[in-house]
């Protein structure tokens, strides 16, 4: 047995194994398509509510990813975290007179003088339906958010579920872009609902009226 030949064999095998591993990983990676979502929701055309709010974004919202397993096709990983942040920052900046971002609910609850309310949005779920699943011509997306609002005594004002729906044609855009477009449309739909319907929630309306009375403003 020549020790030199054994070393040579090992030296050859290592790169081969490494190469096989890299190829294997590349094949596995090829089975997943990552779709980062970017939104460009316009600035809402509304009058802000005359309240100061602290907003807390839970990491489950800001790091949100959804994996859609597609039978017989590549899986989709939809990254919604950044888009969620961008959307809510824009919406809340238009919906409330003053908005301050806080790092934790505890921090917001500790500063009872600084804010009139604490708001924390979360994402309940994102559903994606590729054309093959519904036998349609469209990618469809449904997004469901929850908005929790507390007054500065930590009492809940409202726990509100809001949904959005979107669809896009893959023929015109390509699958990845159509999936992204459907999700962006669903987010925009949810955003429109949040802007218009949040202050119409009976509990929110009551609370806003109370705040306006407290601040000497005429209640609606």
């Amino acid at each position, binding site marked *: 047995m020549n020790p030199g030949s054994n070393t040579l064999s090992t030296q050859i095998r290592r790169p081969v194994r490494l190469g096989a591993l890299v190829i294997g990983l590349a094949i596995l990676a090829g089975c997943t398509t990552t779709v980062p979502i970017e939104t460009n*929701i*316009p*600035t*809402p*055309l*509304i*009058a802000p509510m005359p309240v100061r709010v602290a907003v807390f974004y839970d990491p489950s919202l800001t790091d949100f990813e959804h994996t859609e397993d597609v039978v017989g096709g590549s899986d989709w990983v939809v990254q919604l975290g950044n888009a969620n942040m961008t959307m809510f920052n824009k919406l809340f900046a238009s919906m409330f007179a003053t908005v301050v971002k806080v790092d934790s609910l505890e921090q917001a609850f500790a500063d009872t003088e600084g804010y009139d309310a604490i708001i924390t949005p979360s994402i309940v779920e994102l559903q994606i339906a590729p054309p093959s699943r519904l036998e*349609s*011509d*469209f990618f469809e997306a449904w997004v469901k958010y929850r908005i929790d609002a507390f007054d500065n005594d930590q009492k809940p004002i409202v726990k509100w579920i809001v949904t959005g*729906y979107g*669809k896009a*044609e893959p023929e*015109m855009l390509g699958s990845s872009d159509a999936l992204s477009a459907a999700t962006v449309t669903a987010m*925009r*739909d949810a*955003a*429109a*609902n949040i*802007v*218009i319907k949040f202050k119409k929630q009976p509990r929110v309306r009551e609370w806003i009226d109370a705040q306006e009375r407290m601040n000497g403003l005429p209640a609606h």
Partner: protein
Amino acid sequence: MVYLLTNRCAQAVLATARLTLALSLTLSLGACVNSTIEQVKQPGVAFDNADSIVILARRHQNASETEASFTECVEARLSEESTLLKVHPQKAFIDAMFPWFEPGTAPVTTDAIPELLANPGVRSQIDQTGVRYVVWLDGSTQRIDSGGTMSCAVSPAGGGCLGFGWWEDAADYEATIWDLRTASTTGMVSADVSGTSYMPALIVPIPLIARTQAAACKGLAKQLSQFLGGAPVDLGSE
């Protein structure tokens, strides 16, 4: 001998090609569309060309919603039909009015216009865009029938298709014109277009497409142009 075979083969291909061409020419006369364009206009309405219009599509959560391509086509053709009409870009209008003209929030009837305009900033933003008339497009193009059979084969000697296929599309669209200033419907235009396409195949499939949606777009845009005082119209079947 080889020369003879090649010559025969070439003759057969030529004959087939001639037959396909003849069949295609015959059928091309049949691949046409039938259009019916109608309009209803409120009496005494006079459109002011100083104001802009915007073309918007009604969105539904089903497959038969108005195609984005159709809205873009009507918008583009309307601008081409008349230089007198000022057509405001759809996306710019919806973005400027966010969230009031989104699929789930846009007013469904003219009764909702006063309430919409009462929201802070909405009236001034509409004034800023210069839009007075909103044209709501509703409808879609659907495949209503199809038939025929075609089979294709590939061999080392070559490939080809044999058969005949056809399909019929129907494009039904309606445009409702709102006057935002008077909060009223000033008229409606509808386009009802059907077209049958054919695909004969003798070695090579030759699609003879009836451009149903394009015909509906053209007809609707022409009629809208006349309706809004932009240009004279030549109506009829195509």
